[in-house]
């Protein structure tokens, strides 16, 4: 499921509800669930961030997320996946993104979850504008690197 939401959401309630509507037949096959939650921190580049506005491109964002999910499905053996992303005005500790992957085996779940998250950050059209104490609001220029340089 792909979902873009304007209101604050609790990722654990979402996980609960989403799994509850899965058929028992499906749930009995689930060996592995991998979940990533991205939240708003109150600091970025040494500045205290009080508030953020998340803009997106209605239509394209959903389409890109759908393509990413389809790609994960092709590349790994998955039972289901979920991408939920917040837009609009957000505050520190608010959840920005929830990515979940259900699979029979853990390698598939882990790898697909990470792929979804990195692909989302690289290609889903969302933009963050930060409101920093004592400064003009500013657009975040670029995303951080998701894979470590070993």
């Amino acid at each position: 499921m792909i979902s873009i939401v304007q209101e604050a959401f609790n990722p654990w309630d979402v996980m609960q509800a989403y799994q509850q509507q899965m058929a028992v037949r499906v749930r009995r096959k689930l060996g592995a669930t991998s979940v990533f939650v991205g939240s708003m921190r109150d600091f970025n580049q040494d500045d205290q961030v009080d508030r953020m506005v998340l803009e997106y491109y209605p239509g394209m964002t959903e389409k890109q997320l759908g393509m990413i999910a389809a790609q994960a499905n092709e590349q790994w053996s998955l039972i289901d996946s979920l991408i939920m992303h917040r837009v609009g005005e957000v505050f520190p500790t608010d959840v920005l993104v929830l990515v979940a992957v259900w699979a029979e085996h853990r390698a598939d779940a882990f790898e697909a979850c990470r792929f979804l998250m990195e692909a989302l950050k690289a290609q889903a059209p969302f933009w963050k504008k930060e409101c920093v104490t004592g400064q003009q609001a500013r657009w975040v220029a670029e995303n951080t690197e998701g894979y470590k340089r070993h």
Partner: protein
Amino acid sequence: MNQQCDIVVKYFASLKEKLGRSEDYFTLTRSMTVSDVWAHVNPEIAPPEQLKVAVNLDYVSWDWVVKPGDEVAFFPPVTGG
């Protein structure tokens, strides 16, 4: 979209604020790449470095040729997640 303005151009985020508008409309009178589209609607402004472009909700390169009815979008690098 009617036939008088068969290309819609959209801007997002910092680009939208910089240009001071979120959309442009015009009618295709000749073959145009997305690069030509930018020059047509923003004749005075070079496209910012790293600017992304999408046609009909898919990423394309700057030499992609548009056709009547297309939605062309320009935006800065994405920063979601």
